[in-house]
C-alpha cells in the first residue's frame, strides 16, 4: 500500500504513468457520456408526472453526486497532503477545487432549470438544492483561500486545512439542512420522495453517473499533469518532456 503511494507520489512517476492511462480514460469518458446522453435524453421513457423535463435529471443527478464526491476526494487529498506532506497531493487539491466548483454550479444550474417546469420557479429552498448551494460556497472558500495564499511550497496548507474541516462538517451541514427542510416543508411537497424508478430510467442514470466520474477523473488527471509540469519546471525531466 505504501509502496503504491510512494510510486505515484513522485511527480515524475505520476506524469509518466498517467500519460499512458489518459487516452483510455478519455475514450471511456466519451463512450459513457455519449451513451448515457443518448439513452437518457432520447430513448428513456418520460416520466408520467413530469413529462419530458425529467430528462434534465440525467445531467442534474450525476452532477450533484459528483459535486459531493469531488469534495470528498479533494478533502482526502488534502489530508494526504497535510499529514504525509506528499507534494502531488497538494497539487491534487489545487486542481480538484475548480473542477468541483464548476460541477457544483452545473448541479445548481440544472437543478434550477429542472425546477421551472416542475414547481414553476427557478429556485426552491429544498434540502438538496440548499445543501448543494452550501457545497458551492465550501468550494469557493477553498479556492479563495488557495489563491490568496500565494505560490510557495506550503501555500496550499491553509486551504487543505479548510477542505478537511469542510469534510468533517459536511455531514453535520447536510443533516441540519435536511432536517430544517423537513420541518418547514409544506404539506404538498413531495420532491424528496420519488417513486421507485423503473430500470429503463435508472440504467441510463447509472451510465451517466459513471460517465461523469470518468470525465471528472479525466479532467482532474489532465489538470494535475499540467500542474505537475508547472511546479517541477526546474527539474530536468520536465525540460526534456517540454522540448520533445
Amino acid at each position, binding site marked *: 500500500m505504501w509502496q503504491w503511494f510512494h510510486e505515484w507520489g513522485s511527480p515524475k512517476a505520476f506524469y509518466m504513468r498517467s500519460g499512458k492511462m489518459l487516452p483510455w480514460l478519455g475514450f471511456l469518458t466519451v463512450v459513457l457520456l455519449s451513451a448515457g446522453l443518448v439513452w437518457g435524453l432520447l430513448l428513456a421513457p418520460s416520466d408520467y408526472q413530469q413529462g419530458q423535463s425529467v430528462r434534465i435529471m440525467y445531467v442534474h443527478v450525476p452532477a450533484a453526486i459528483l459535486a459531493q464526491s469531488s469534495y470528498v476526494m479533494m478533502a482526502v487529498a488534502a489530508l494526504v497532503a497535510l499529514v504525509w506532506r506528499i507534494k502531488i497531493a497538494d497539487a491534487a487539491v489545487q486542481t480538484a477545487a475548480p473542477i468541483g466548483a464548476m460541477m457544483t454550479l452545473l448541479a445548481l444550474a440544472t437543478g434550477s432549470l429542472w425546477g421551472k417546469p416542475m414547481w414553476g420557479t427557478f429556485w426552491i429552498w429544498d434540502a438538496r438544492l440548499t445543501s448543494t448551494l*452550501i457545497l458551492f460556497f*465550501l468550494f469557493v472558500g477553498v479556492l479563495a483561500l488557495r489563491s490568496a495564499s500565494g505560490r510557495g511550497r506550503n501555500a496550499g496548507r491553509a486551504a487543505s486545512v479548510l477542505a478537511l*474541516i469542510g469534510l468533517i462538517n459536511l455531514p453535520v451541514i447536510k443533516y441540519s439542512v435536511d432536517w430544517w427542510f423537513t420541518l418547514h416543508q409544506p404539506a404538498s411537497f413531495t420532491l424528496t420522495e420519488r417513486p421507485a424508478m423503473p430500470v429503463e430510467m435508472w440504467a441510463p442514470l447509472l451510465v451517466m453517473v459513471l460517465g461523469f466520474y470518468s470525465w471528472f477523473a479525466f479532467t482532474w488527471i489532465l489538470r494535475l499533469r499540467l500542474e505537475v509540469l508547472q511546479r517541477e519546471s526546474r527539474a530536468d525531466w520536465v525540460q526534456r518532456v517540454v522540448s520533445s
Partner: protein
Amino acid sequence: MRECKILVRSPADAVQSLLFVVMVVTLFPLAISPDPSVLAGIAAGLIWVVALLAALLAAERGIQADFADGVLEQMVLGNTPLWLLCLIKAFAHWLSCGLPLLLITPLLGTMLALEALEIYWMLASLALGLPVLSLFCTLGAMLTVGLDRSSVLLPLLIAPFLIPTLILGTQWVQSGGQSFYGYMLAALLSLSVVTLPLATGVAVRIAVSR
C-alpha cells in the same frame, strides 16, 4: 488572563459589537414592518443572523494584532500547547462579542416583540451556540491572518460552517424549547470545543510561516 486585560483596556471593541447588533436589529422593523406578529415570527432567526454577522466581524480582533506584533510567533515557539492558546483566543472572542450579545438579548427580544418565555429560549440557544461561533471564527481568523483582504475572505470561508449552529439555535427557539435541539447544540458545542482548537493550532503554525 492576558486576554482579559487587553479587552479591558479597549472596551471599544465590545461596544462596537453591541452597537452593530442593536443597529441591525433596528433596521429590520424599519425595513419590513413594525407589526409585532410579523416581528415575533422572524425574531429568533433575525437575532441569530445578527449574532453570526457580529461574530464574523469581530473574528479578527486580537488575532490580527498578535500576528503583526509577532506574538503568534512567540506562541508557536513556546512550551504551552497551541490548542490551549487557541481555546483561550476563542474564549476572548466570546468575551468581547458573544457575552455582550447575550447580555443585550433581552432588550433585543423586547424590541422584536418576543415574549418572556421565547426570550428565555433565545438566551439558552445563544448561550450554547455563541461559543461554537467563536470557535469557528477563531479558526477562520487563524487561517486567513496575514493574507490580503483577509477580512473579506474570512466570512466567506467560515459562514457555511456556522449554518448548522444557526439552524439548531433558531429551531430550538421556534419550537418552544424542545429539549432535542438543546442536546444537539450541546453535542455540537462539545465536539467543537474538542476538535476546533486543535485545527486552529495547525492554522497558527501555517500562519506564522507566511
